[in-house]
């Protein structure tokens, strides 16, 4: 009894230590695993599922000079913070969202886009252009199911997890279980500092992304 009482009397200081040390090491890891915008390329993907550390690790294998880190996040990572979203270098977005979020994207380099159109599978919509200006390169084709970095990114989502029991109401649910098929494009952030003439790191990472199995 005395031991139990003694344990509970000293429990607050152990709990306080656990909370403080956890916060401290989380802060340290945030510092250790991050760097300034000049030295990193950030990729945001609006996809159902993403193996972000593995994708970032794979992209880091072909890091251009001057870049120390690649960060990859899904949009769900953002929560209520859109500052990091605005500062991203590369976006993977659904084709129908490109026009909607056009103000977040900058036109891709014409030569780079042309080179991609020539080297990638030839199809009419490999380059997404608005008024003749290239904005994105297709990374997933919903019709063929072909896509880049499929080992790290899940492009196909099921709208609902409902189980059908055969009733009329469930027919709609069964319909909603059909996978939502949509094309995905790779676009460049309007505020990216790696899409210039001198710093082309975002294009290098985009090339690496397109080459991933």
């Amino acid at each position: 009894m005395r031991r139990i009482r003694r344990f509970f009397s000293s429990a607050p200081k152990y709990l306080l230590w656990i909370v403080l040390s956890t916060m401290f090491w989380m802060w340290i890891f945030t510092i250790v695993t991050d760097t300034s915008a000049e030295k990193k390329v950030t990729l945001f993907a609006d996809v159902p599922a993403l193996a972000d550390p593995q994708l970032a690790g794979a992209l880091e294998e072909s890091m251009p000079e001057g870049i120390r880190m690649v960060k990859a996040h899904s949009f769900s990572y953002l929560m209520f913070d859109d500052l990091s979203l605005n500062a991203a270098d590369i976006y993977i977005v659904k084709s129908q969202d490109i026009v909607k979020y056009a103000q977040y994207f900058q036109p891709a380099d014409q030569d780079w886009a042309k080179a991609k159109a020539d080297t990638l599978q030839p199809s009419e919509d490999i380059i997404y252009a608005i008024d003749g200006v290239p904005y994105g390169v297709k990374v997933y084709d919903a019709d063929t199911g072909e896509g880049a970095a499929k080992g790290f990114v899940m492009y196909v989502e099921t709208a609902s997890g409902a189980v059908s029991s055969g009733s009329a109401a469930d027919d709609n649910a069964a319909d909603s279980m059909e996978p939502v098929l949509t094309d995905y494009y790779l676009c460049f952030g309007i505020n990216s500092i790696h899409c210039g003439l001198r710093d082309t790191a975002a294009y290098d990472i985009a090339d690496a992304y397109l080459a991933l199995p």
Partner: protein
Amino acid sequence: MKQKVELYPEGEKSRLKRKTKVWTIITAAAAALVLVCCITLCALADTVNAARMERICCLVSGAGGCAVIFLYTHFVLGSRRMARHLDTLQDEEIQAVSGRVTMAPGRIAISGSITVRTLHVAPEKSPERAGVNDDPTGKDSSAAKRVSISAEKVRLLPPLPARLTLYTVHGYAVSYEVHDETD
């Protein structure tokens, strides 16, 4: 024949100092080990394993830190407080109190000092002086006196209740003599 038993034998102070030193070294080594482990985990972290390393680091730091706190509070502080308590008992006037000694239930943890237990010493009068109050102030001198004893030293006492002469300094028992029941 009465035999005086010392609760704080010769060399107790140097033994405590040595104990404090050893536990301080052990605690510091444990803290250093936890810190080195956490720094190593930080150094080994890369983009792919960062989340796992962070979880392990938090676990090592949390559990290791708790172990260090436990070592410090139970061993280092314990022996350091005992040594300080021993300092207050040295070179002071010793008083004696005799009677039937019983132990009060419960421990008293003195803030920043040792944990003590309380002994009640009920004085015994000879049959011919029974009923006579010796105290000129009129207070009942037959009332039980209270003596504190370090909780760690209780195991050195004979089974209680017993007839003892307790030698005290500042109200703390430092030695005792057992009375023969035939006395």
